[in-house]
Every structure is written in structure tokens, then in C-alpha cells.
């Protein structure tokens, strides 16, 4: 016997789309405690000069009491919402990109929503250092697809909780902080097409050192984030610069038309090498927030943009090329207008 439908498929309505979206607000939060290289060097038998040469990092921030993943998300979101002219309670969706929220479940995003008195859709994105740029694309598509009018995208990390103080490859790299953007309806294009993807074959290049199951069953020490520096460097510079170029091409923008290049703040050597590969003219401002913030994974791109906007280094309404790349390996790049 054949099952037949009731025949009302034609009655189904789709959401009403909206043509364009843009970043309408940006904000950041840097933890109170400044950690200079001198605090790191002893346990990794290193020096301030060695760390600066290899990473460009002068100091980073480590979160303390009252600076949880949720707290920092809220502190970063508040100025972003203010710039956007949107109330937290009026948000339609909240996306939180993080790898250092210490609960397997639930996600951090509903707790961020609750702090704003919001019951909006709220989920986390696990794409490590690429998570924020994924969130911008997802928010853009949600607004344009008619699922939301205003979306909060947060990139937040407390990587100090997952950093080994004795690992010479990572102890000096990671920092804590949060950046946030509001993505809203727009009358003109504000977020270009995204070039994104993954390479799971290289998943071990950046990963938690052991699974939670192994930690539990083998009574191992608290795991941390490990990284194969050379592999990541090669992939980031020679793999990601072409991705950034494709994002420019897809947006119909040339390097000469850019006002800013805001790559994930992985390492200043990667930032400089990418800028060289892209052939950026000298008048394009290049984000080097890593010097005073360290590598804050998902938070690094919005934190870098927030600093550049706040300090008047880049013009509001200008064009920025941003790219996130990291564990997965995962990546996402797009051209956006600067809020």
C-alpha cells in the first residue's frame, strides 16, 4: 500500500528573507591581570627576547575571579550592543565561539543570553581560532535568511585554564579575553561571501592533549592544548593566504581597496608572512593586537578589530579582510565593512 500525503505542501511558507546584513557593533573585554613574558620564562627555560622574536608577544592577559567565560562574554557584548543600538533582550540569536568553556554541556550561549534577560536561540560554535569568523557567516546567513534581525556573535576564551605552564611550544602563546559583534539587517552589503572549510586529516596539529575519557580512565593530569608549531606555521602562511585572497576575489575587492587586514592573532610571524603573501600595500592597517593580548583563539579577531576601531586606526565604514584559522583544522575568511 502506498502512503499518500495530505496534499498541502504548496501551503508551506518559508521565512521572509532580507537582502543584506552588516556588523553593526563591535566590543571587547581584556582581563584585568597583565602577564608579562618575565612571568612565563622560567618554567620553559626561555627569555623575553626569545618569546618576542618567535611570536611578537610582549604580554598577555589571564582571567581571574569574576572573569569567567560567561562574564567576559557579557562584558564584551555590552559595548557591541551599545554601538549597534540594540538591547540584549531584543536579540534574536546568540552564537558563542569558544573552546574553553569548561562544561561539556550545556553550551555557554544560553547562560550569556540569560544574563541579558534574553530567551533567544543560543548555541556555541566549536571551531577554535576560526570560530568567530564562522559565527559572522552564520549570523549573516541567519539575518539574510529571515531567521533573525539581530544576532550577537561572541568569541571568548579562558585558555589559561587549558595551557601547560611547562610546554615550550604553547606556554607563552595563549591568552584570555572576549570580543563580540552584533550582526544586523542592512540596506547595503556589509559582509562579503565567506571562504571556509576544514582539513580533518591534520586534526592532531592543534588539539587537546588527551580525550576526557583517557584523562578519566588513565588518571592523567589535567589536559592542555598542544600544537605542532611548524606544521601550523606552514599551513597558516601558505595554506591560508590563498584562502584570504579567495575571500577578496569573492567579494569583488582588491588589496588596494582594503582599509584593514585582521587575521587571527596566532603569531606575529604568521601575520607578517600572510601580509607579505597577499602583497598588501603599506597603507592597509594590519592587526598586531597579539603583542599585548597573546593568542586568544576565538576572541582574537574581534578583539583586534575592537582595538583598531577604538584607537581610530581604521575608518568606520571602510573594508576589512578578516580570517580565522586553527584547530580542526578549520578556517573561514570574509571581507566586512568596519562598524
Amino acid at each position: 500500500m502506498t502512503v499518500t500525503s495530505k496534499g498541502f505542501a504548496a501551503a508551506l511558507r518559508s521565512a521572509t528573507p532580507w537582502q543584506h546584513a552588516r556588523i553593526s557593533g563591535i566590543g571587547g573585554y581584556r582581563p584585568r591581570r597583565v602577564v608579562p613574558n618575565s612571568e612565563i620564562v622560567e618554567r620553559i627555560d626561555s627569555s623575553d627576547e626569545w618569546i618576542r622574536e618567535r611570536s611578537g608577544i610582549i604580554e598577555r592577559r589571564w582571567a581571574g575571579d569574576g572573569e569567567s567565560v560567561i562574564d567576559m562574554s557579557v562584558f564584551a557584548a555590552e559595548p557591541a550592543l551599545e554601538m549597534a543600538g540594540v538591547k540584549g533582550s531584543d536579540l534574536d540569536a546568540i552564537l558563542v565561539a569558544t573552546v574553553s568553556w569548561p562544561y561539556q554541556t550545556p553550551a555557554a550561549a544560553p547562560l550569556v543570553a540569560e544574563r541579558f534577560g534574553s530567551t533567544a536561540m543560543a548555541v556555541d560554535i566549536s571551531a577554535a581560532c576560526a570560530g568567530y569568523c564562522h559565527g559572522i557567516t552564520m549570523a549573516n546567513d541567519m539575518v539574510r535568511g529571515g531567521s533573525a534581525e539581530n544576532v550577537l556573535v561572541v568569541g571568548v576564551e579562558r585558555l589559561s585554564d587549558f595551557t601547560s605552564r611547562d610546554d615550550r611550544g604553547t606556554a607563552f602563546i595563549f591568552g584570555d579575553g572576549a570580543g563580540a559583534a552584533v550582526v544586523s539587517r542592512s540596506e547595503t552589503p556589509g559582509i562579503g561571501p565567506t571562504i571556509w572549510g576544514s582539513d580533518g586529516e591534520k586534526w592532531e596539529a592543534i588539539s587537546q592533549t588527551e580525550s576526557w575519557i583517557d584523562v578519566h580512565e588513565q588518571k592523567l593530569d589535567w589536559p592542555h592544548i598542544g600544537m605542532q608549531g611548524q606544521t601550523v606555521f606552514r599551513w597558516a602562511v601558505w595554506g591560508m593566504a590563498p584562502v584570504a585572497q579567495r575571500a577578496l576575489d569573492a567579494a569583488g575587492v582588491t588589496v588596494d581597496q582594503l582599509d584593514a587586514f585582521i587575521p587571527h592573532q596566532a603569531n606575529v610571524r604568521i601575520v607578517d608572512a600572510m601580509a607579505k603573501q597577499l602583497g598588501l600595500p603599506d597603507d592597509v592597517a594590519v592587526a598586531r593586537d597579539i603583542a599585548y593580548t597573546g593568542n586568544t583563539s576565538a576572541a582574537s579577531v574581534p578583539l583586534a578589530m575592537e582595538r583598531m576601531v577604538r584607537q581610530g586606526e581604521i575608518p568606520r565604514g571602510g573594508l576589512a579582510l578578516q580570517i580565522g584559522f586553527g584547530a580542526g583544522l578549520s578556517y573561514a575568511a570574509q571581507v566586512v565593512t568596519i562598524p
Partner: protein
Amino acid sequence: MAQSEQEILAGLAEIVNEETGLEPSEVQSDKSFTDDLDIDSLSMMTIVVNAEEKFGVRIPDDEVKNLSTVGDAVGFIAKNQA
């Protein structure tokens, strides 16, 4: 056409010079990249990628740690050149 080890050494010295500013004459077979030439791991990777392009060879990440001296790199490139 495969190049002689002498030609590879000269080409490698140019790449090292471009990345680090070291005089090509200092880049000799018995020199250690890290201990003698003071080349760090990220500069080493830049040299590796540029050498791949210049000599038409593939140098996997796992192989890089085995190339401790300039001579090791020249030998690997000579052996693996098409």
C-alpha cells in the same frame, strides 16, 4: 634536470640569505641550522617551503626535524629531485 649538490648548496644559500640576511658564504654543508646559523623553527619552515618551490621537491613536516645541518638538506633535496 637534477642539479649537482654544489648547485643545490648555492641555491639553498640564496634562500637562507633571503630569509635571515646571512652571507651565502656562511651557509656550508657542515653547519647546523639551529646551533651555527641560529635559524629558528619558523624561519626553517620558510626556508623549507622556498626550497620546495626552487628545487621541485616535497619536504614533509616530519622530515624537517631530520635536516639538522645544511648538508642534510642538500642531500635530501639531491636524493628526492626528479
